[in-house]
């Protein structure tokens, strides 16, 4: 047996212990990596990294001392030959015990002081001496992020734009499960807990594009729940914010964009809004998002409507599917055709009627998909003329477009019930709803005084759309009557 002991070359534990150290040196932390916590671009992340390094070096010293002692003792006091001599049978040493109780305690106090300082700096509200605060509400959804700018009345998704050097105050919420909001290079994470308002703040002090990712396990597509943060110069940020209120140019008739718009309005606009540029669209989109959520939670099995990212000015984005892929025509076509080829588990594929096919791919021809993609990529702040809400433009008002803009979040053009009734065949039945009201009169009354008559089993939630103007409403009525 003793031969075996001799074979256990005593340096072996030393070598094995050195492995992690060696790896540490080899894999020296690389701040260039997209989510490195060391490539900091904001004061919070910088403080956190500095605190980490402070603790790390203390730990390194302790590590070397302790492991050194273990290795030294293992070698120095190993059994030589077969000497069975008994070592001194000590029971311990009280002075030593007290020493090595107090020294770690002192070290921990040294760690605790900067820790507490930073906790109170970072977690007790946004500082008011660092510049004008930008307020953002970030909302986690399975599996994408929604960003609302209450000051600017902007809603967007998956790509967050902030101005450089200004504190951004986040109100974090979630609509479904717990998510976590994390931009490693700018600030550590804070969880998004449903109906538990959480707050954090951050400053991005270097212009650039940064990666963010959901860090709390949130279900099947957790790995794919990412986002981007763009830190702009103040001017660029203003330009972006202003652009978000400029409507996209209407597609030229007959162009692929126009055909794509048609497709979008038919298949996508039930859940996706793509034109939140006009005054009032901010509040409306929030209420739609709530309605979509209620549509899903109240009947998960058969929901025809789910929460979905706002696609306003989608063409200005750089990424697809919550920061997963570079956004271009071919990735977008892949995405629309079969979302699970990029991201498994999307609500879109699960619930949207257009994916109700044998293999789960979209029930669209390649041409249609391509047109929709082209249309979406064309969504950018327009030249300013002729765009905007159709109601404000001159000339012929397109009822279909008005419907897609204003109504399709709650009403489908088929028989499917979303929030309100599906409107296929409305022209046939509108005349018999209220005695004395003809088809046109009934539809008009429903639009301008919706509470006057509510169809059974539907909630009386529709608002007065009289502000659209007579001309628009006329066009809408004409369009609605064509629905079969």
């Amino acid at each position, binding site marked *: 047996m003793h031969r075996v002991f001799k074979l256990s070359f005593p340096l072996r534990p030393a070598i094995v212990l050195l492995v992690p150290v060696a790896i540490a040196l080899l894999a020296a932390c690389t701040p260039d990596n997209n989510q490195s916590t060391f490539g900091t671009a904001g004061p919070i992340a910088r403080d956190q990294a500095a605190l980490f390094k402070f603790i790390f070096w203390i730990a390194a010293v302790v590590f070397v001392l302790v492991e050194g002692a273990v290795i030294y003792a293992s070698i120095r006091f190993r059994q030589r030959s077969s000497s069975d001599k008994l070592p001194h049978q000590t029971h311990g040493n009280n002075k030593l015990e007290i020493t090595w109780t107090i020294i770690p305690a002192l070290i921990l106090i040294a760690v605790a002081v900067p820790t507490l300082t930073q906790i109170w700096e970072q*977690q*007790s509200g*946004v500082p008011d001496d660092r510049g004008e605060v930008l307020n953002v509400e970030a909302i986690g959804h399975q599996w994408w992020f929604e960003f609302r700018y209450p000051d600017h009345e902007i809603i967007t998704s998956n790509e967050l734009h902030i101005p450089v050097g200004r504190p951004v105050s986040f*109100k974090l919420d979630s609509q479904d499960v717990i998510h976590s909001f994390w931009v490693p290079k700018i600030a550590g994470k*804070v969880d998004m807990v449903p109906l*538990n*308002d959480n*707050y*954090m703040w951050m400053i991005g002090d270097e212009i650039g594009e940064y990666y963010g990712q959901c860090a709390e396990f949130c279900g099947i597509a957790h790995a794919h729940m990412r986002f981007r943060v763009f830190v702009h110069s103040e001017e660029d940020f203003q330009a972006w914010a202003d652009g978000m209120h400029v409507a996209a140019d209407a597609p030229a008739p007959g162009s692929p964009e126009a055909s794509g718009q048609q497709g979008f309005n038919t298949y996508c606009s039930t859940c996706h809004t793509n034109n939140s540029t006009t005054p009032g669209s901010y509040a409306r989109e929030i209420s739609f998002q709530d309605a979509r959520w209620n549509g899903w939670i109240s009947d998960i099995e058969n929901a025809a409507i789910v929460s979905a990212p706002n696609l306003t000015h989608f063409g200005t984005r750089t990424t697809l599917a919550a920061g997963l892929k570079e956004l271009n025509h071919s990735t977008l076509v892949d995405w629309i055709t079969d979302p699970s080829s990029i991201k498994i588990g999307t609500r879109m594929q699960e619930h949207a009627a257009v994916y109700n096919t044998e293999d789960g791919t979209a029930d669209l021809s390649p041409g249609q998909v391509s047109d929709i993609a082209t249309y979406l990529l064309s969504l950018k702040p327009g030249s300013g003329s002729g765009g905007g809400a159709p109601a404000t433009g001159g000339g012929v008002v397109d009822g279909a477009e008005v419907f897609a803009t204003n109504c399709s979040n709650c009403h489908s053009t088929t028989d499917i019930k979303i929030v309100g009734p599906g409107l296929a065949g409305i022209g046939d039945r509108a005349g018999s709803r209220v005695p004395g009201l003809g088809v046109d009169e009934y539809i008009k009354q429903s639009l301008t005084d919706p509470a006057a008559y509510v169809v059974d089993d539907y909630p009386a939630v529709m608002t007065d759309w009289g502000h659209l103007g007579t001309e628009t409403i006329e066009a809408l009525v004409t369009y609605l009557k064509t629905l079969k």
Partner: protein
Amino acid sequence: MANLWHRLTHYEGNGWWNLPRSASAEANPPHEGPIGGAWLSNIFRTLTHGGVSHAGPGFYWLVGLMLAIITLLEVWLFAVEGLGAWYVPLLLGLSALKFVGVVAFFMHLRFDNRFFTYVFVASMLIGIGIFSALLLLMEYAHQVP
């Protein structure tokens, strides 16, 4: 301090950790119940049966009566309006009294080791500690804007 240390760490005749090995070593516990110790027990023992070492039915009836009175008192407090902020602490105090009453005078396991009593008391302390902390956290621990 040194004395305490010795009592804790070393075996000395009646040290805290000198736990008898079996039932026979502690056949007659010095006092009833784990809580309150000899002090509380002796008071009631004197009150009820003049220092007889064994509690009798009379003693139990008396404790039962007191518990019933406390319950009535609680219900009366409930009926009385206008106690305001005193209401909850008063009730908690009274029910703590009942709690101790039952534990101290009804519950005693003669042939069990004192260590188990410590386990129970420790669990009470840990339980009260962590669950109060939990209440505080759920009530007040929130991020501010």
